[in-house]
């Protein structure tokens, strides 16, 4: 298992990284590698470290010469605050995930009158997320959980081989959250997501990175994560 993982191409190789968030040091001495196919949960009970780390990974993946271009064709990002345009419908918000793939003319036409091909594809995704009823509703009128599912739908519509998700199920009730994490794991080959819920992290991730005060406390395969480790993370 371990040797198999080592053969997968490297997506990120962070060495002693630091990053600031709102002029405060949010991350320091961050060193880890991410390989293709890994499902990683970030756990950070203390604060902004996980968001900063996910943003850092996203920015790195968008650099034109990041060295991983051959492996990393598309990266989808699920924002903690959903990052939706509240005046536009669910359909248009989801469509935004693929704005770069079509011409400006097509995008404009789709804004005025949604195109059939777009509609069928987005409807499928929304049905999976139990959101097909809200397809034409503006996102400003949705509940928190519905907004979050719209943000997830946009990431799924964008596709690609890496998904970065910041608290993707924070507003979704426990019954639905499992199904949504199942969907995400099927859709994206490599996932880095921050989670609050320990049970979900243990179930869906193969590797857990525990962050505390902007530093890595532990970085272990899920099977090696013990209750003592989690306890030091949550109750220092």
């Amino acid at each position: 298992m371990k040797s198999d993982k080592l053969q997968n191409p490297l997506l990120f190789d962070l060495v002693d990284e630091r990053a600031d968030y709102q002029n405060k040091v949010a991350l320091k001495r961050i060193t880890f590698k991410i390989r293709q196919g890994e499902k990683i949960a970030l756990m950070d009970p203390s604060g902004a470290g996980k968001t900063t780390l996910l943003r850092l990974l996203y920015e790195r993946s968008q650099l034109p010469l990041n060295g991983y271009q051959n492996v990393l064709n598309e990266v989808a990002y699920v924002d903690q605050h959903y990052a939706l345009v509240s005046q536009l419908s669910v359909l248009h918000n989801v469509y935004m995930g693929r704005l770069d793939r079509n011409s400006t003319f097509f995008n404009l036409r789709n804004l005025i009158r949604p195109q059939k091909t777009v509609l069928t594809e987005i409807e499928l995704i929304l049905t999976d997320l139990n959101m097909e009823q809200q397809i034409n509703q503006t996102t400003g009128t949705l509940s928190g959980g519905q907004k979050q599912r719209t943000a997830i739908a946009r990431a799924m519509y964008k596709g690609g081989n890496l998904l970065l998700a910041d608290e993707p199920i924070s507003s979704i009730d426990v019954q639905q959250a499992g199904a949504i994490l199942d969907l995400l794991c099927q859709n994206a080959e490599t996932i880095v997501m921050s989670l609050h819920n320990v049970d979900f992290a243990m179930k869906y991730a193969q590797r857990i990175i525990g962050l505390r005060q902007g530093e890595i406390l532990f970085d272990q395969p899920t099977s090696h994560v013990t209750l003592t480790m989690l306890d030091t993370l949550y109750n220092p």
Partner: protein
Amino acid sequence: MLRTSLIFVVIALLSLPFADLEITTSHPWTELGQIALGAIQPDLSALWQLKTALLNTVVFAFCGTSIGVVLGAGLAFGFSWAPIRLFCVFIRSIHEIFWAFLFLNIVGLNPICGVLSIAIPYAGIFAKVYAEIVQESDKQPLVGIPTGTGVISRFIYGGHL
């Protein structure tokens, strides 16, 4: 303060005999009388002529403002660039009527003069208003827009450049 004012009054009185003053209206009271009479007995048949004037006003305003909207929207895109911002300050700080006086000398008394003198200051006003709407709108959705997206697509969906 009082002394300074008095000095000015004295200077004014001393200059009065040398001033080139001339009243050209021969019968000022007749003129005023006609105005007063008109207020009591308005000539209602003249109202009909006002129709064309009213229509002209609306048409000029409509054309001028429409052109202003289009030009202003264009200028709003470059509003973050200081020369464009200063240009907008310049054109909107001159009142329509003064633009009209300027254009009167260039194009003469015709519709182009009227429409341009409305369109130009309003272009400056709309540019500022549009640029501020864009500035104040939520920047967060930009996270959801893929990096390679064209400027126009990004603007129509995300509301930002």
